[in-house]
């Protein structure tokens, strides 16, 4: 799968998941900047992050360590983390 992962599609899907799970009604995937700081600029907290992570684990079949939450500070960072995880499988 890793070779097939399209970075843009991955980023867009992560944006959709975050918008849906955190009920960000005023956001659209298109407008969601991949480098937006989820904690500083969007106000995401640890419970929000855990919720998103659980859904991402389901969707991509990867294991995300709870100690790695600080590495998931933007959509691009999440996408990179998932890609790397998939490549290491």
């Amino acid at each position, binding site marked *: *799968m*890793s070779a*097939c992962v399209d970075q843009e599609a991955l980023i867009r899907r992560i944006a959709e998941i975050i918008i849906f799970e955190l009920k960000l009604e005023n956001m659209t995937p298109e407008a969601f900047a991949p480098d937006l700081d989820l*904690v500083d600029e969007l*106000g*995401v*907290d*640890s*419970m*929000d*992050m*855990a*919720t998103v*992570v*659980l*859904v991402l*684990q*389901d969707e*991509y*079949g*990867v*294991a995300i*360590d*709870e*100690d790695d*939450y*600080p590495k998931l*500070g933007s959509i691009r960072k999440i996408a990179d983390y998932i890609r790397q995880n*998939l490549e290491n*499988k």
Partner: protein
Amino acid sequence: MNQTSTLASSRCNTESGIWKFSEILADAAVRERWEKVRKYFFLRESSYDMTTRCNIRCDGCYYYEGQKQFAQCNENPKAWQELMSQEKKRGITFVVLAGAEPSLVPRILETCYEEVSLGCIATNGFIRIPESVGYRIHISVWGNDRTSLRIRRAKNLLLKQLDNYQNDPRALFVYTFTRNNIDEAHEVVKMIAGHGGKVTFNMFSAPVGYEGNLRHDLKSLDLTRRVMLDLLAQYPENVIYSTYNAVAHTQPSGLHQIYGCSYPRMNPSEDIGLGRSFRQYRADLSWDREKACCVPDTDCNDCRHYASGSAVVTARLHRHATQPDTFRSWLDYVDTYLAVWVMGYKKSDNLCPEQVEPPQRPE
């Protein structure tokens, strides 16, 4: 490798013993409870000592340990209004007003409530807090009135507390189990229930350096769990608790060792969560990251505080979302925590009556 085979070989399947989150949520009752509790994930707490004064002195009181008791009190409502305004700006949505005795500064409580509408006050209940303060009110109970007289030097305390808060929807009695008052819980809870009151449970957690006889041992932990579960079964309308609460708070190890405390005092990370946002203000409105936790000066190895667990167990959503019963237990815990702390939140029936052991900490 295609997506189907990737998912089949992943850890998230029932063959590996770890369930997918979506599979756990496929149960309608679990999904409903998850949707109920997650609405409150916006809560961001900080805690505040309101004054250094108290009207009683209790054996084992955490407040009169460490340096915070020597802070110069700031009882100027304007200063508190400014503090609360700043707290709101940095994202705090829930305030815990505690030490030493908040009922002695009612004007400041009103000021806080006017700025931040969600919160809780920890009081000994001797003086009634005005109804204009719409926070949840936790009234500490440390045994029957004979025990209160002995260790709190307070006469007829429970009767006074019940009288002050009869039919008050803000009030929640918090029975603290020490090594020596376990059986007394039966008579105290019966009395509270007889007055139509609600009660939850706390565990005495020794302050740093404490050498008194209230500290729990293995025998008292085991007995406490049994009494908690008995009372939960006997008074389901009055006792706000769950089986998993009892299990989590009566383990041989403290909460930090089991779950990893997320308060700044034990958590150096400032990236996300409590380590980033939580502050514990002293009565002079200063705060110190090195000491910041919900009950400062508690011996972290002995910490089983209800306040600590409310944050620490709740924060471990990730590691509880691996098995249906583990997740149900976590939902019961969070549902209990919200009913205990948030004014107006109604507790639902517990989903998991079995005693489920806490999940292991990741290596």
